[in-house]
Protein backbone atom coordinates (compact mmCIF):
# COMPACT_ATOMS: atom_id res chain seq x y z
CA UNK A 1 0.00 0.00 0.00
CA UNK A 2 1.44 3.31 -0.98
CA UNK A 3 1.90 5.83 1.75
CA UNK A 4 -0.31 8.83 1.66
CA UNK A 5 0.36 10.79 -1.51
CA UNK A 6 1.81 14.25 -1.14
CA UNK A 7 -1.07 15.73 -3.09
CA UNK A 8 -3.57 14.34 -0.63
CA UNK A 9 -1.74 15.87 2.29
CA UNK A 10 -1.77 19.20 0.49
CA UNK A 11 -5.47 18.78 -0.19
CA UNK A 12 -6.06 18.05 3.48
CA UNK A 13 -4.31 21.23 4.53
CA UNK A 14 -5.98 23.35 1.88
CA UNK A 15 -9.39 21.98 2.82
CA UNK A 16 -8.82 22.64 6.49
CA UNK A 17 -7.70 26.19 5.79
CA UNK A 18 -10.67 26.81 3.55
CA UNK A 19 -12.97 25.54 6.24
CA UNK A 20 -11.48 27.78 8.90
CA UNK A 21 -11.74 30.78 6.60
CA UNK A 22 -15.30 29.86 5.68
CA UNK A 23 -16.34 29.68 9.31
CA UNK A 24 -14.69 32.99 9.88
CA UNK A 25 -16.49 34.52 6.94
CA UNK A 26 -19.82 33.18 8.07
CA UNK A 27 -19.54 34.62 11.52
CA UNK A 28 -17.51 37.76 11.03
CA UNK A 29 -17.49 38.80 7.41
CA UNK A 30 -21.10 38.31 6.43
CA UNK A 31 -23.39 40.96 7.81
CA UNK A 32 -26.17 40.22 10.25
CA UNK A 33 -29.41 39.71 8.39
CA UNK A 34 -32.10 42.14 9.38
CA UNK A 35 -35.13 39.89 9.74
CA UNK A 36 -33.83 36.56 10.99
CA UNK A 37 -30.74 37.46 12.93
CA UNK A 38 -28.12 34.93 13.81
CA UNK A 39 -30.17 31.97 12.67
CA UNK A 40 -29.72 33.07 9.11
CA UNK A 41 -26.04 32.12 9.31
CA UNK A 42 -27.09 28.48 9.17
CA UNK A 43 -28.00 29.17 5.57
CA UNK A 44 -24.45 29.28 4.28
CA UNK A 45 -23.49 25.82 5.43
CA UNK A 46 -26.93 24.39 4.94
CA UNK A 47 -26.98 24.98 1.22
CA UNK A 48 -23.36 23.91 0.85
CA UNK A 49 -24.19 20.67 2.64
CA UNK A 50 -27.14 20.07 0.38
CA UNK A 51 -24.95 20.70 -2.63
CA UNK A 52 -22.51 18.05 -1.48
CA UNK A 53 -25.42 15.75 -0.82
CA UNK A 54 -26.49 16.01 -4.41
CA UNK A 55 -22.99 15.30 -5.64
CA UNK A 56 -23.21 11.81 -4.21
CA UNK A 57 -25.55 10.43 -6.82
CA UNK A 58 -23.81 12.26 -9.60
CA UNK A 59 -20.45 10.73 -8.75
CA UNK A 60 -21.96 7.34 -8.02
CA UNK A 61 -23.83 7.30 -11.32
CA UNK A 62 -20.70 8.17 -13.24
CA UNK A 63 -18.61 5.57 -11.44
CA UNK A 64 -21.48 3.13 -11.82
CA UNK A 65 -21.47 3.63 -15.56
CA UNK A 66 -17.71 3.25 -15.48
CA UNK A 67 -18.05 -0.02 -13.63
CA UNK A 68 -20.57 -1.43 -16.06
CA UNK A 69 -18.59 -0.42 -19.10
CA UNK A 70 -15.10 -1.17 -17.92
CA UNK A 71 -15.78 -3.94 -15.44
CA UNK A 72 -12.99 -2.83 -13.12
CA UNK A 73 -14.08 -3.15 -9.47
CA UNK A 74 -12.15 -0.01 -8.59
CA UNK A 75 -15.01 2.05 -9.95
CA UNK A 76 -17.23 0.55 -7.32
CA UNK A 77 -15.18 1.89 -4.43
CA UNK A 78 -15.63 5.42 -5.73
CA UNK A 79 -19.36 4.89 -6.00
CA UNK A 80 -19.94 3.70 -2.49
CA UNK A 81 -17.54 6.28 -1.11
CA UNK A 82 -19.48 9.08 -2.76
CA UNK A 83 -22.81 7.85 -1.49
CA UNK A 84 -21.55 7.31 2.03
CA UNK A 85 -20.27 10.86 2.21
CA UNK A 86 -23.34 12.36 0.63
CA UNK A 87 -25.60 10.40 2.94
CA UNK A 88 -24.00 12.05 5.94
CA UNK A 89 -23.85 15.49 4.39
CA UNK A 90 -27.44 15.44 3.30
CA UNK A 91 -28.42 14.38 6.77
CA UNK A 92 -26.61 17.39 8.15
CA UNK A 93 -28.32 19.53 5.54
CA UNK A 94 -31.72 18.28 6.57
CA UNK A 95 -31.00 18.87 10.23
CA UNK A 96 -29.61 22.34 9.60
CA UNK A 97 -32.62 23.04 7.42
CA UNK A 98 -34.78 22.01 10.30
CA UNK A 99 -33.03 24.48 12.57
CA UNK A 100 -33.55 27.17 9.96
CA UNK A 101 -37.21 26.30 9.69
CA UNK A 102 -37.62 26.55 13.44
CA UNK A 103 -35.98 29.93 13.46
CA UNK A 104 -37.89 31.27 10.48
CA UNK A 105 -41.33 29.72 10.53
CA UNK A 106 -41.51 28.19 13.99
CA UNK A 107 -41.83 24.58 12.83
CA UNK A 108 -39.23 21.84 12.77
CA UNK A 109 -40.40 20.35 9.49
CA UNK A 110 -42.19 21.61 6.43
CA UNK A 111 -43.40 19.53 3.55
CA UNK A 112 -42.01 21.85 0.98
CA UNK A 113 -40.31 20.73 -2.23
CA UNK A 114 -36.66 21.04 -1.35
CA UNK A 115 -36.88 19.46 2.04
CA UNK A 116 -39.15 16.72 0.75
CA UNK A 117 -36.83 16.02 -2.16
CA UNK A 118 -33.93 15.87 0.25
CA UNK A 119 -35.76 13.35 2.38
CA UNK A 120 -36.47 11.22 -0.67
CA UNK A 121 -32.86 11.33 -1.83
CA UNK A 122 -31.79 10.37 1.66
CA UNK A 123 -34.11 7.37 1.48
CA UNK A 124 -32.68 6.45 -1.90
CA UNK A 125 -29.21 6.44 -0.37
CA UNK A 126 -30.45 4.26 2.47
CA UNK A 127 -32.07 1.89 -0.01
CA UNK A 128 -28.76 1.73 -1.87
CA UNK A 129 -26.99 0.55 1.27
CA UNK A 130 -29.67 -2.00 2.04
CA UNK A 131 -29.51 -3.33 -1.48
CA UNK A 132 -25.77 -3.81 -1.34
CA UNK A 133 -25.94 -5.42 2.04
CA UNK A 134 -28.24 -8.13 0.76
CA UNK A 135 -25.90 -9.43 -1.93
CA UNK A 136 -23.10 -11.85 -1.14
CA UNK A 137 -21.02 -11.91 -4.29
CA UNK A 138 -18.85 -8.77 -4.40
CA UNK A 139 -18.90 -8.44 -8.17
CA UNK A 140 -22.64 -8.72 -8.31
CA UNK A 141 -23.00 -6.33 -5.42
CA UNK A 142 -20.93 -3.77 -7.24
CA UNK A 143 -22.86 -4.17 -10.46
CA UNK A 144 -26.32 -4.04 -8.94
CA UNK A 145 -25.29 -1.10 -6.76
CA UNK A 146 -24.06 0.70 -9.85
CA UNK A 147 -27.36 0.15 -11.62
CA UNK A 148 -29.38 1.41 -8.70
CA UNK A 149 -27.16 4.47 -8.45
CA UNK A 150 -27.76 5.22 -12.12
CA UNK A 151 -31.51 4.76 -11.79
CA UNK A 152 -31.57 6.97 -8.72
CA UNK A 153 -29.59 9.63 -10.49
CA UNK A 154 -32.13 9.62 -13.33
CA UNK A 155 -35.07 9.87 -11.00
CA UNK A 156 -33.84 12.69 -8.78
CA UNK A 157 -34.34 15.55 -11.28
CA UNK A 158 -37.79 14.21 -12.14
CA UNK A 159 -38.64 13.95 -8.46
CA UNK A 160 -37.47 17.45 -7.86
CA UNK A 161 -39.41 18.87 -10.80
CA UNK A 162 -42.60 17.12 -9.80
CA UNK A 163 -42.38 18.34 -6.24
CA UNK A 164 -41.40 21.79 -7.42
CA UNK A 165 -44.56 22.22 -9.43
CA UNK A 166 -46.29 22.22 -6.08
CA UNK A 167 -46.54 25.42 -4.14
CA UNK A 168 -43.51 26.12 -2.06
CA UNK A 169 -42.67 27.96 1.10
CA UNK A 170 -39.00 27.10 0.85
CA UNK A 171 -37.01 30.25 0.17
CA UNK A 172 -36.17 30.34 -3.49
CA UNK A 173 -32.97 32.26 -3.10
CA UNK A 174 -31.49 31.71 -6.49
CA UNK A 175 -33.83 31.82 -9.40
CA UNK A 176 -37.50 32.38 -9.57
CA UNK A 177 -40.41 34.00 -7.87
CA UNK A 178 -39.63 35.66 -4.58
CA UNK A 179 -43.24 36.73 -4.45
CA UNK A 180 -44.70 33.55 -3.04
CA UNK A 181 -41.64 32.58 -1.04
CA UNK A 182 -41.61 33.78 2.51
CA UNK A 183 -38.36 33.90 4.34
CA UNK A 184 -36.37 34.79 1.28
CA UNK A 185 -34.04 37.69 1.28
CA UNK A 186 -31.87 39.55 -1.13
CA UNK A 187 -28.23 38.79 -0.73
CA UNK A 188 -25.83 41.61 -0.39
CA UNK A 189 -22.45 41.31 -2.05
CA UNK A 190 -20.75 40.15 1.13
CA UNK A 191 -23.41 37.53 1.67
CA UNK A 192 -23.01 36.30 -1.86
CA UNK A 193 -19.28 36.04 -1.42
CA UNK A 194 -19.64 34.10 1.81
CA UNK A 195 -22.18 31.84 0.16
CA UNK A 196 -20.00 31.11 -2.83
CA UNK A 197 -17.00 30.55 -0.63
CA UNK A 198 -18.95 28.04 1.46
CA UNK A 199 -19.91 26.16 -1.67
CA UNK A 200 -16.29 26.06 -2.70
CA UNK A 201 -15.13 24.93 0.72
CA UNK A 202 -17.64 22.13 0.86
CA UNK A 203 -16.74 20.95 -2.60
CA UNK A 204 -13.18 20.66 -1.39
CA UNK A 205 -14.33 18.83 1.72
CA UNK A 206 -16.24 16.39 -0.49
CA UNK A 207 -13.25 15.77 -2.72
CA UNK A 208 -10.93 15.37 0.24
CA UNK A 209 -13.18 12.93 2.06
CA UNK A 210 -13.83 11.06 -1.18
CA UNK A 211 -10.16 10.54 -1.78
CA UNK A 212 -9.60 9.36 1.79
CA UNK A 213 -12.55 7.02 1.60
CA UNK A 214 -11.40 5.54 -1.71
CA UNK A 215 -7.98 4.89 -0.19
CA UNK A 216 -9.70 3.23 2.72
CA UNK A 217 -11.67 1.06 0.35
CA UNK A 218 -8.56 0.03 -1.52
CA UNK A 219 -6.81 -0.77 1.73
CA UNK A 220 -9.73 -2.98 2.73
CA UNK A 221 -9.49 -4.84 -0.57
CA UNK A 222 -5.75 -5.35 -0.16
CA UNK A 223 -6.16 -6.58 3.39
CA UNK A 224 -8.81 -9.02 2.30
CA UNK A 225 -6.61 -10.30 -0.53
CA UNK A 226 -3.72 -10.87 1.85
CA UNK A 227 -5.98 -12.60 4.31
CA UNK A 228 -7.28 -14.98 1.66
CA UNK A 229 -3.74 -15.68 0.51
CA UNK A 230 -2.63 -16.74 3.97
CA UNK A 231 -5.72 -18.90 4.38
CA UNK A 232 -4.94 -20.94 1.29
Amino acid sequence: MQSKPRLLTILDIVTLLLFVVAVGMVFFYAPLEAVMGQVQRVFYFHVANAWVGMLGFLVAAISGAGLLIKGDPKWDIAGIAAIEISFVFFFIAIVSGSIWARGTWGTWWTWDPRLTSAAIVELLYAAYFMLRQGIEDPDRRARIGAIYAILSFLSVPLTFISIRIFRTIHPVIIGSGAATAQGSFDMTTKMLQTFMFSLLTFSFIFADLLWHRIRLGRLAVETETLRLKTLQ
Partner: protein
Amino acid sequence: MELLPKAENRVRRKSLMPGVGQFLRTLGAIIWKDLATELRSRELLSAMLVFALLVILIFNFALELDAQARATVTAGVLWVTFAFAGTIGLNRSMAMEKDRGCLDGLLLAPVDRSAIYFGKAIGNLIFMLIVEAIILPAYSVLYSVNLFKPGLLLVILLGSTGYVAVGTLLSSMAVQTRTRDVLLPILLFPLVIPVMIAAVKASMGYLQGSDILDIRPWLNLLLVYDVIFIAAAFMVFDYVVEE
Protein backbone atom coordinates in the same frame (compact mmCIF):
# COMPACT_ATOMS: atom_id res chain seq x y z
CA MET B 1 -5.16 -16.84 -29.04
CA GLU B 2 -6.87 -18.86 -31.72
CA LEU B 3 -8.15 -16.83 -34.59
CA LEU B 4 -11.55 -17.99 -35.66
CA PRO B 5 -12.41 -17.57 -39.34
CA LYS B 6 -13.88 -14.13 -39.94
CA ALA B 7 -17.17 -15.43 -41.28
CA GLU B 8 -17.87 -17.40 -38.14
CA ASN B 9 -17.03 -14.45 -35.94
CA ARG B 10 -19.92 -12.46 -37.21
CA VAL B 11 -22.97 -13.99 -35.67
CA ARG B 12 -25.11 -11.20 -36.90
CA ARG B 13 -28.51 -11.51 -38.46
CA LYS B 14 -28.51 -10.76 -42.11
CA SER B 15 -31.43 -8.43 -41.99
CA LEU B 16 -33.36 -6.68 -39.29
CA MET B 17 -36.68 -8.41 -39.80
CA PRO B 18 -35.85 -11.92 -38.51
CA GLY B 19 -34.39 -10.28 -35.40
CA VAL B 20 -37.52 -8.31 -34.76
CA GLY B 21 -39.63 -11.35 -35.45
CA GLN B 22 -37.72 -13.45 -32.95
CA PHE B 23 -37.92 -10.65 -30.40
CA LEU B 24 -41.69 -10.45 -30.73
CA ARG B 25 -42.02 -14.22 -30.65
CA THR B 26 -40.06 -14.39 -27.42
CA LEU B 27 -42.13 -11.57 -25.99
CA GLY B 28 -45.31 -13.36 -26.91
CA ALA B 29 -44.09 -16.66 -25.51
CA ILE B 30 -43.22 -15.17 -22.13
CA ILE B 31 -46.43 -13.16 -21.84
CA TRP B 32 -48.52 -16.15 -22.84
CA LYS B 33 -46.68 -18.29 -20.31
CA ASP B 34 -47.33 -15.84 -17.47
CA LEU B 35 -50.99 -15.45 -18.39
CA ALA B 36 -51.54 -19.19 -18.75
CA THR B 37 -49.87 -19.91 -15.43
CA GLU B 38 -51.91 -17.24 -13.73
CA LEU B 39 -55.13 -18.51 -15.24
CA ARG B 40 -54.47 -21.89 -13.70
CA SER B 41 -53.32 -20.89 -10.26
CA ARG B 42 -54.83 -17.44 -9.91
CA GLU B 43 -52.36 -16.87 -7.08
CA LEU B 44 -51.07 -13.55 -8.19
CA LEU B 45 -54.33 -11.88 -9.09
CA SER B 46 -56.18 -13.05 -6.04
CA ALA B 47 -53.38 -11.91 -3.76
CA MET B 48 -53.23 -8.50 -5.41
CA LEU B 49 -56.99 -8.07 -5.38
CA VAL B 50 -57.54 -9.07 -1.80
CA PHE B 51 -54.69 -6.89 -0.69
CA ALA B 52 -56.00 -3.93 -2.64
CA LEU B 53 -59.45 -4.28 -1.14
CA LEU B 54 -57.96 -4.53 2.33
CA VAL B 55 -56.00 -1.35 1.76
CA ILE B 56 -59.13 0.48 0.70
CA LEU B 57 -60.88 -0.87 3.77
CA ILE B 58 -58.12 0.35 6.04
CA PHE B 59 -58.25 3.75 4.43
CA ASN B 60 -61.90 3.89 5.22
CA PHE B 61 -61.09 3.77 8.90
CA ALA B 62 -57.85 5.66 8.79
CA LEU B 63 -59.29 8.67 7.01
CA GLU B 64 -62.60 10.08 8.06
CA LEU B 65 -64.11 10.45 4.65
CA ASP B 66 -67.19 12.54 4.34
CA ALA B 67 -68.45 13.19 0.85
CA GLN B 68 -66.49 16.42 0.64
CA ALA B 69 -63.16 14.97 1.74
CA ARG B 70 -63.62 11.99 -0.51
CA ALA B 71 -63.51 14.11 -3.61
CA THR B 72 -60.03 15.37 -2.82
CA VAL B 73 -58.68 12.16 -1.43
CA THR B 74 -59.91 9.57 -3.93
CA ALA B 75 -57.01 9.93 -6.32
CA GLY B 76 -54.48 9.53 -3.53
CA VAL B 77 -56.20 6.51 -2.01
CA LEU B 78 -56.43 4.80 -5.36
CA TRP B 79 -52.79 5.28 -6.21
CA VAL B 80 -51.53 4.22 -2.80
CA THR B 81 -53.63 1.09 -3.21
CA PHE B 82 -52.21 0.41 -6.65
CA ALA B 83 -48.67 1.01 -5.46
CA PHE B 84 -48.95 -1.47 -2.61
CA ALA B 85 -50.84 -4.12 -4.53
CA GLY B 86 -48.34 -3.67 -7.32
CA THR B 87 -45.40 -4.73 -5.19
CA ILE B 88 -47.12 -8.01 -4.43
CA GLY B 89 -47.52 -8.75 -8.11
CA LEU B 90 -43.97 -7.75 -8.94
CA ASN B 91 -42.52 -9.87 -6.18
CA ARG B 92 -44.50 -12.96 -7.06
CA SER B 93 -43.79 -12.65 -10.75
CA MET B 94 -40.02 -12.70 -10.33
CA ALA B 95 -40.02 -15.16 -7.45
CA MET B 96 -41.81 -17.62 -9.68
CA GLU B 97 -38.89 -17.54 -12.10
CA LYS B 98 -36.17 -17.65 -9.54
CA ASP B 99 -37.51 -20.43 -7.37
CA ARG B 100 -37.47 -23.28 -9.80
CA GLY B 101 -34.44 -22.02 -11.59
CA CYS B 102 -36.66 -20.94 -14.46
CA LEU B 103 -34.81 -17.68 -14.79
CA ASP B 104 -31.81 -19.73 -15.86
CA GLY B 105 -34.07 -21.46 -18.32
CA LEU B 106 -34.93 -18.10 -19.83
CA LEU B 107 -31.32 -16.97 -19.83
CA LEU B 108 -30.19 -20.14 -21.57
CA ALA B 109 -32.44 -19.50 -24.53
CA PRO B 110 -30.82 -17.90 -27.57
CA VAL B 111 -32.86 -14.76 -27.22
CA ASP B 112 -32.14 -11.12 -26.59
CA ARG B 113 -32.03 -10.59 -22.82
CA SER B 114 -34.06 -7.43 -23.07
CA ALA B 115 -36.86 -9.51 -24.61
CA ILE B 116 -37.05 -11.31 -21.29
CA TYR B 117 -37.35 -7.99 -19.49
CA PHE B 118 -40.08 -6.71 -21.78
CA GLY B 119 -41.94 -9.98 -21.63
CA LYS B 120 -42.02 -9.93 -17.84
CA ALA B 121 -42.78 -6.22 -17.72
CA ILE B 122 -45.70 -6.43 -20.11
CA GLY B 123 -47.02 -9.44 -18.21
CA ASN B 124 -46.77 -7.47 -14.96
CA LEU B 125 -48.50 -4.52 -16.59
CA ILE B 126 -51.38 -6.68 -17.76
CA PHE B 127 -51.89 -8.05 -14.26
CA MET B 128 -51.75 -4.60 -12.74
CA LEU B 129 -54.28 -3.28 -15.24
CA ILE B 130 -56.58 -6.20 -14.52
CA VAL B 131 -56.45 -5.47 -10.82
CA GLU B 132 -57.04 -1.78 -11.46
CA ALA B 133 -59.95 -2.60 -13.72
CA ILE B 134 -61.57 -4.43 -10.84
CA ILE B 135 -60.68 -1.97 -8.11
CA LEU B 136 -62.08 1.05 -9.93
CA PRO B 137 -65.66 -0.23 -10.04
CA ALA B 138 -65.27 -1.61 -6.52
CA TYR B 139 -64.25 1.78 -5.22
CA SER B 140 -67.01 3.45 -7.19
CA VAL B 141 -69.58 1.23 -5.58
CA LEU B 142 -68.18 1.42 -2.06
CA TYR B 143 -67.97 5.18 -2.02
CA SER B 144 -70.59 6.23 -4.55
CA VAL B 145 -68.07 8.04 -6.67
CA ASN B 146 -68.14 8.08 -10.42
CA LEU B 147 -64.72 7.01 -11.59
CA PHE B 148 -65.46 6.42 -15.23
CA LYS B 149 -63.79 9.33 -16.83
CA PRO B 150 -61.74 8.46 -19.94
CA GLY B 151 -58.95 10.79 -18.90
CA LEU B 152 -58.54 8.82 -15.70
CA LEU B 153 -58.02 5.65 -17.68
CA LEU B 154 -55.23 7.31 -19.61
CA VAL B 155 -53.52 8.38 -16.39
CA ILE B 156 -53.83 4.89 -14.99
CA LEU B 157 -52.26 3.46 -18.11
CA LEU B 158 -49.34 5.88 -18.14
CA GLY B 159 -48.76 5.67 -14.41
CA SER B 160 -48.93 1.88 -14.27
CA THR B 161 -46.51 1.63 -17.19
CA GLY B 162 -43.90 3.73 -15.41
CA TYR B 163 -44.42 1.87 -12.17
CA VAL B 164 -44.13 -1.54 -13.78
CA ALA B 165 -41.15 -0.58 -15.94
CA VAL B 166 -39.07 0.34 -12.91
CA GLY B 167 -40.68 -2.30 -10.72
CA THR B 168 -39.83 -5.19 -13.03
CA LEU B 169 -36.22 -4.09 -13.25
CA LEU B 170 -35.92 -3.65 -9.50
CA SER B 171 -37.64 -6.94 -8.75
CA SER B 172 -35.07 -8.71 -10.90
CA MET B 173 -32.44 -7.05 -8.73
CA ALA B 174 -34.18 -7.63 -5.43
CA VAL B 175 -34.76 -11.30 -6.16
CA GLN B 176 -31.02 -11.83 -6.05
CA THR B 177 -30.71 -10.57 -2.49
CA ARG B 178 -31.34 -12.32 0.78
CA THR B 179 -34.12 -9.96 1.80
CA ARG B 180 -36.01 -10.24 -1.48
CA ASP B 181 -39.65 -9.36 -0.90
CA VAL B 182 -38.96 -6.86 1.80
CA LEU B 183 -36.42 -4.99 -0.25
CA LEU B 184 -38.54 -4.29 -3.31
CA PRO B 185 -40.79 -1.61 -1.81
CA ILE B 186 -37.79 0.07 -0.21
CA LEU B 187 -36.03 0.23 -3.54
CA LEU B 188 -39.08 1.02 -5.59
CA PHE B 189 -41.06 3.67 -3.78
CA PRO B 190 -38.46 6.44 -3.68
CA LEU B 191 -37.79 5.93 -7.39
CA VAL B 192 -41.43 6.07 -8.47
CA ILE B 193 -42.31 9.18 -6.51
CA PRO B 194 -42.52 11.27 -9.69
CA VAL B 195 -45.03 8.77 -11.05
CA MET B 196 -47.07 8.83 -7.87
CA ILE B 197 -47.18 12.60 -7.70
CA ALA B 198 -47.96 13.10 -11.36
CA ALA B 199 -50.51 10.30 -11.42
CA VAL B 200 -52.34 11.53 -8.35
CA LYS B 201 -52.38 15.12 -9.56
CA ALA B 202 -53.53 14.17 -13.03
CA SER B 203 -56.16 11.79 -11.68
CA MET B 204 -57.45 14.47 -9.37
CA GLY B 205 -57.56 16.86 -12.28
CA TYR B 206 -59.71 14.55 -14.33
CA LEU B 207 -61.96 13.62 -11.47
CA GLN B 208 -62.62 17.22 -10.58
CA GLY B 209 -63.03 18.25 -14.16
CA SER B 210 -60.10 20.64 -14.18
CA ASP B 211 -58.90 22.43 -17.25
CA ILE B 212 -56.77 20.29 -19.55
CA LEU B 213 -54.06 22.93 -19.39
CA ASP B 214 -53.58 22.18 -15.71
CA ILE B 215 -53.47 18.46 -16.27
CA ARG B 216 -51.17 18.53 -19.28
CA PRO B 217 -47.86 19.11 -17.37
CA TRP B 218 -48.53 16.05 -15.22
CA LEU B 219 -49.28 13.90 -18.24
CA ASN B 220 -46.08 15.13 -19.84
CA LEU B 221 -44.13 14.27 -16.74
CA LEU B 222 -45.57 10.76 -16.77
CA LEU B 223 -44.69 10.35 -20.40
CA VAL B 224 -41.14 11.61 -19.90
CA TYR B 225 -40.65 9.34 -16.91
CA ASP B 226 -41.97 6.32 -18.80
CA VAL B 227 -39.71 6.94 -21.77
CA ILE B 228 -36.60 7.56 -19.70
CA PHE B 229 -37.00 4.53 -17.51
CA ILE B 230 -38.06 2.09 -20.18
CA ALA B 231 -34.98 3.13 -22.15
CA ALA B 232 -32.78 2.84 -19.06
CA ALA B 233 -34.18 -0.61 -18.22
CA PHE B 234 -33.61 -1.76 -21.77
CA MET B 235 -29.96 -0.76 -21.58
CA VAL B 236 -29.28 -2.02 -18.12
CA PHE B 237 -31.15 -5.33 -17.84
CA ASP B 238 -28.29 -7.39 -19.29
CA TYR B 239 -26.05 -6.29 -16.46
CA VAL B 240 -28.61 -7.18 -13.84
CA VAL B 241 -28.90 -10.82 -14.84
CA GLU B 242 -25.38 -11.63 -15.89
CA GLU B 243 -23.11 -13.44 -13.50
